[in-house]
Each structure stands twice: as structure tokens, then as C-alpha cells.
């Protein structure tokens, strides 16, 4: 029997959403709801900002859906033992086919009540500390770690600052670099800046086809550089935040394909593809001797970045 996280039990599920809701959330902002053919294949000329909207789609499968659709067993583990239990990050033992893993997944919530409980997927320091505690447990138990990234960013509020948001994220990044167990990271929706990286360091960094990952939200970037948040589509383009761009730039290792109309049109199919990809990554990382894996992990981050040194000559 699979245990569904308590705070998610009351959720209505993806199928309970009306077609009117679907139309209202059309990522391409079609004026005519009849155009909102969610099951139709997406056109090839989606702009980066269209993809950002798909990644934020309220019907997009999230960690709780993948727990239901993809994992063969899940046992949630709560709490950071210091302050509280952050619902924006779900952690626990999980079984994926033959693989027993520690799952760390960001959760936005599927309806208004849940979204408020999950703080719209914006974790607090206690969420990052909970994640670290469970990852340390995985290290001791020699369990690989799977993280599912889906956050607009870490929570920007008074309490988060009082409890050391920057410190919590930095500590996770610092610890994950050297954690003596394989780590696989997948961006399933939004990969929002430091809030994503706080559970996003490891041996494989993959992204789903219509997910995105960025150093700043396109709206935030537009507000600063264009002095106007409505220029978000331009910022989204400039930031090179789509899966395709990130693969070209060698920031991500792999793109996980989605159903023709994106993951929300067929969560089951999306979960099946994600499962296969995860099993492949898990095989690769668990087949690699741990000392080699850790050297490779260190080397990958150590080489990150592009700059000139002496006469203009690309170093990397």
C-alpha cells in the first residue's frame, strides 16, 4: 500500500479540474477558450516564455503526482528536528521498480488550500534543513537520492530571513557536493534560482522538456533590467532558460521528453517516461564506483563557468 502524504490526501486530483479551468490556464493565453486544445501537440515555435507558462501550468504534474503515478512505494518522513515541517518539500523513502531511494521533492500544491499549505512551492529554511537531514540519512543507509525540482524560488519573507534562508541553501549545496551516495536531480517544473539549487546538486542534472531553470525569474529580471516586469518574455528569451538551451550550454545532462501536449495533458505518460529516465540514471550512477562518482561530481561543478584569461581565449 502506498502512503499518500497526509496534507495531500484531500486533493482533488488532476482529473477533477473542469475544462473551463483548463482553458483559463492556457499557456498561450488564447483569448478564445475553444482554442485551448490541451491535448493537441504543441507547436514547435513556442517562445521561451510560453515554456515558462507551461512549466507553471497549475495542472502540471508535481511531486505528489509522481509519487502516485511513478513510485511503487512511498513512506513520507517529516520534519527538520529544529523548527518545523515544511510542506513545500516532501521527503521520504521511495521505491522505483527495483531501486530503493530517498526522494526529495518540491511541492506547490494542487488546489488553493494545498497551495497555501505548501506556500506555492517556495520552501523555507526548515524545508532545506529537512531535505539535508534526510539526505544525510540516505548517505548512511547507502540509498541513492532522487530530487524533483519544482519551485519559483525560496520563500522571500521575514521568517525565512530570520531563520537563515541563505545559510540553509548554502549549507545544502556545500553538503551535497560531498555526500557519499549517488544523487540524481530532475527539474520537473520550475527551477527557480537558489531555491532550486538548494536541492539541485548531484551526479545527473536532467530537465523535463517543458520545464525551465533560471538564475532569476523572467519577471524579476525584466523588472531590474528593463525596469518593467511586463518585458518578461524578452527576459525569458535572454536568460536561455529552456531545456533545449540548457542542454546546448551543457548545464543539464539530459532532456526528458513529455507527451505531445506537455506533461499536464497526460500525467500518466509523463510519469512513465520520467520513471524510465530515472531508472537509467540510477543504473548509471550506482554502477560507477563511489570515489569516481564523487570526483566526477566535484569536477563537473569545478569546471562550471566561461571566462577569458590572458588574450581572449575561451577557458572552461
Amino acid at each position: 500500500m502506498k502512503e499518500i502524504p497526509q496534507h495531500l490526501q484531500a486533493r482533488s486530483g488532476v482529473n477533477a479540474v473542469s475544462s473551463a479551468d483548463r482553458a483559463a490556464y492556457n499557456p498561450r493565453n488564447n483569448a478564445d477558450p475553444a482554442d485551448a486544445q490541451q491535448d493537441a501537440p504543441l507547436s514547435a515555435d513556442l517562445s521561451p516564455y510560453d515554456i515558462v507558462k507551461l512549466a507553471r501550468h497549475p495542472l502540471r504534474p508535481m511531486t505528489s503526482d509522481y509519487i502516485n503515478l511513478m513510485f511503487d512505494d512511498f513512506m513520507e518522513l517529516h520534519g527538520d528536528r529544529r523548527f518545523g515541517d515544511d510542506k513545500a518539500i516532501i521527503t521520504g523513502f521511495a521505491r522505483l521498480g527495483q531501486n530503493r531511494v530517498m526522494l526529495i521533492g518540491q511541492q506547490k500544491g494542487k488546489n488553493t488550500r494545498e497551495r497555501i499549505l505548501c506556500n506555492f512551492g517556495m520552501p523555507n529554511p526548515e524545508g532545506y534543513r529537512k531535505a539535508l537531514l534526510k539526505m544525510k540519512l540516505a548517505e548512511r543507509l547507502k540509498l541513492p537520492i532522487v530530487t524533483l525540482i519544482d519551485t519559483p524560488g525560496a520563500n522571500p519573507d521575514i521568517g525565512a530571513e530570520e531563520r537563515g534562508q541563505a545559510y540553509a541553501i548554502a549549507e545544502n549545496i556545500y553538503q551535497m557536493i560531498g555526500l557519499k551516495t549517488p544523487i540524481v536531480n530532475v527539474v520537473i517544473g520550475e527551477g527557480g534560482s537558489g531555491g532550486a539549487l538548494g536541492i539541485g546538486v548531484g551526479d545527473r542534472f536532467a530537465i523535463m522538456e517543458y520545464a525551465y531553470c533560471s538564475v532569476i525569474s523572467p519577471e524579476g529580471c525584466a523588472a531590474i533590467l528593463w525596469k518593467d516586469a511586463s518585458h518578461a518574455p524578452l527576459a525569458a528569451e535572454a536568460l536561455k532558460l529552456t531545456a533545449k538551451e540548457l542542454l546546448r550550454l551543457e548545464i543539464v545532462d539530459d532532456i526528458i521528453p513529455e507527451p505531445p501536449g506537455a506533461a499536464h495533458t497526460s500525467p500518466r505518460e509523463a510519469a512513465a517516461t520520467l520513471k524510465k529516465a530515472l531508472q537509467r540514471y540510477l543504473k548509471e550512477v550506482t554502477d560507477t564506483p563511489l570515489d569516481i562518482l564523487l570526483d566526477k561530481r566535484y569536477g563537473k561543478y569545478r569546471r562550471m563557468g566561461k571566462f577569458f584569461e590572458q588574450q581572449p581565449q575561451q577557458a572552461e
Partner: protein
Amino acid sequence: MLKKKGVITDGLWIRCDACKGLVYKKAMEERLDVCPECNHHFRISARRRIEITLDKGSFEELWADMHPADPIEFKDRISYSERTAQEQKKTGLNEAAVVGLGSIEGKKIVFGVTDSNFIMGSMGSVMGEKIARAAEKAAETGLPLIIISGSGGGARMQEGMFSLMQMAKTNATISRLHDAGGTFISILTDPTMGGVMASYASQGDIIIAEPGALIGFAGPRVIQQTIKKTLPPDFQSAEFLLEHGFLDMIVSRQDMKKELSRIIDYLNGPAVENATEETVN
């Protein structure tokens, strides 16, 4: 040297933008750009920081010719390469970070400083690489690593995800420095925010801040817009962080060199001092 908005330079007198008082310019300079009236610590350049922190003439800059590439061909209203060229001209620096070897009261250290005037002191590939190399230098030489951060920008958005990954790169090298038995002293100055604070800057074995410095993860304006409430008066100040347990100490600029020297003595010295003449007698 004082170029922050609100500071009126008028011959011998300037107006402090914190207390609005008229201050004798020379008195301000003698106090290392700290207002003699209200103790406001003005933002200073990397060069000035080196001058007031390290022994005279001891700084030997490393990897000085490293400069930014344009890895994602970023363009807003101007291109990233135009922007970096402008910033280089404005600051006389190749990049926001300056690192090297130096000494404090004769004690050798690996030293780094970031200049908040250069694209807000934000961290792109060059800053990440310089900090990583400085950490490696400290691990290799066994010298203490001291980095004085000033970054309102956090991770530099013009280098996209490459900037975000510098958070992992710098932390990776700090972790190796720790594995090698090294020590990192992180000094936070006004302002140290975002991706810089959420990476190497908060990983110091000893963390010090200048009085009144703005330090945090999310910018105060972003928080204000999100929660739609007025922020507490001291919010995200060095004093607020000390109160919440995130700093070892607040040290004023005039005392910084002396206090760093005392700390280095604790790092370098043995736990039990050798018997000296006075203890023998």
C-alpha cells in the same frame, strides 16, 4: 572615493546620506570612510579595501587578467559585453572580484574582495573562478583565506545558469579547503545578498560583518512586495543577523585589521604556547 548617491561633495565638506549631517571630508577619510557623526560605514572600492586591510605594499594580485566572457550572449537594453566594458571603465577593474596574496600585521593570508560597484558586485563566472582558485590556493599553502564580500546583486543574471552554478563551484572549493584543514574567514559588508550570501559567503568558519551592513537572501524590496507588510526597522542588518545567531561578531572598519590579526593568531598558534621566559621564571 565617496561616490554614493546622496553624498554631496562640496570642497572640504560632505553631507552624510545616513545622518544628513555635514562632515569634514578629511575626518571621514581618516576614519576609513565611516561617518564620524553616525558611524555609517560607506561602501568602498576593492582597491580601497585592500589599502586599509592589508599591510602596505603586501598585496600581490593573482589572475588579474581574467575577464568576463558572454556565455549566453545576453542582451537587455544593452549587450552584456557593452555593460562589462562600461563597468570596467567606471571601476578600473576587470571584474568585481580581486584576489591575491597579502599580509596582515606580517601574517600571510590569501585575500579576496568583491566590489559592489561592478555590476552590483554580482557573481558571474569570473568571480566564481577567482574565489575557487583562492580557496584552492589557501588549501595548497595552508594560509588562512579571508574574503570580504560586497554584493547587492547575488548571482549575475547576465550569465544565466552559469552564474547560479558558481554558487556550487565556490562551495565545492570551500568544502575541499575544509577537508585540507584550512580556515575561511568571511567578512560581510554592505550589501551582501542573494546567491553570494547563499553560497561561499555564509560558509565561513568565522563570519564577521561591518556595522549596519545589509545582509540576506531575498532583497528587502522583493520581500516587501511579496508580503505587503512594512519590514521591521533593523531587518536584514548586521545587528539583526547577530541577534539571530548568524554572525560571530560585528567589527567596525577601524578595528577590522587588528581583529583579523588577533583571529589569525588563534588560527596559527598552538593550543598550548611554548614556555616563554616569563612563564619559566
